[in-house]
């Protein structure tokens, strides 16, 4: 699984970082980025989906493994 943060949509709500700090980082302006090139370890796929489902800006998308 891979997560992508759309930097134009992200407005710094920090919901992703609060829910899954092992998958996201935020800078001092609230801008979120996906860690590890967005690659999600198997043990964190539930958290990755939760982060996507709680983003008020719909800024997070997920590419599932084929």
């Amino acid at each position, binding site marked *: 699984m891979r997560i992508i943060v759309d930097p134009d949509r992200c*407005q*710094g*709500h*920090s919901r992703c*970082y*609060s829910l899954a700090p092992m998958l996201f980082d*935020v*800078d*001092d*302006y*609230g801008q979120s980025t996906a860690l590890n090139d967005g690659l999600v370890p198997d043990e964190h796929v539930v958290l990755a989906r*939760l982060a996507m*489902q*709680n*983003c*008020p*800006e*719909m800024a997070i998308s997920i590419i599932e493994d084929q």
Partner: protein
Amino acid sequence: MAKTVVVSFATDYDIFDPDYVRDPAPMWEQLRSSCPIAHSDRYGGSWLPTRYADVTAIAHDVEHFSSRNVGVVPPDELDDGMLPAGLPPISVDPPLHTWSRRLLLPWFSHTRVAVYEGTTRALCAQLAERIAERGSGDAAVEYAQQIPARVIAGVLGVPPDLADTFTGWVRDVLEFAHDAERRNLGRNELVAYLMTQIEQRKSAPGDDLISSLLHTEVDGEPVPDAHVLGTAALTLIAGVDTTWSSIGSALWHLATNPGDRERLVAEPDLIPVAIEELLRAYSPVTMARIVADDVEVAGCPMKSGDRVLLNFPAANRDPEQFPEADQVIIDRSQNRHVAFGVGIHRCAGSNLARMELLVAIQEWLKAIPNFSLDSSADVTWAGGQVRGPRTIPVVVG
């Protein structure tokens, strides 16, 4: 002000009507299925969207909807001149919004908010302990109201023991916005106080937001004093009533829903999830926009200059977005609520507000795991720009 009875919500809603302030959700439900964007001529006239899709679309459309006045009640002639730069960044549009927001955001980053957590926790524990020992108290006046003004005083570098004075000014400006005389009196005192603070920091800067703004350059120019004043006033106005209302609503919910209270006491790890659900269900803040260019939204012809209320509280109760929207589901895991707004004006202090709300609920439940409303006294609510309980008499045990 003489009030007339509201005949039709769709054409004559009154956001200060005591019944609406106490429980607005039934009106929103009725409007969503009949007239999802209502209009009223009261308080200078405004549009009131009630659906999540409409509220968020308007919030994102900064071309048609300006932030040049975000009050739910229009300013009057007495407002002119006291805050010449407005309240940047909340009251300005891009490009001014962009740099003024960048000056402010680092003061509310996760790193910065962590600095305030320890003192906030100690304050909450002390306040809760006092109520626990007495066996009764007012969860709004003696607890919720006491927290944000002291935290914001730390950000601004002003004395926390003036918290009650700050709270009084902010109530004048927001809660009594429809009383022009009181609003202007409170606003003028707040402005005079901050102007003195700005002058002092020019020669003796500290580690605080006002000093930082005064000693920052944008494009090689110092930030104008009027801008510093506006941003400092915004920080105080937006940081007090809002968070206090959220903490109060959360405690009111827990006082009246023993099942949820018992679950959070038993499962404290659930509190961060519960906080988001309580923010959704009892969102305090409604902002306004001014139509910049004629535009039609869901069939409603909005004209340049019209006021539109960004009804985030109603959006968060829209069943199209949230299953069982009027139910508090304390472990709701999918929660794209917009209590802090959406788009470029997302509440700049949301990290700080969330920390305060989380710590306030954690420390209250630690000291007072068992409590309920005191049936001999009334819960009272305020509304308009910011909705929340103003008195919550509780008994412990």
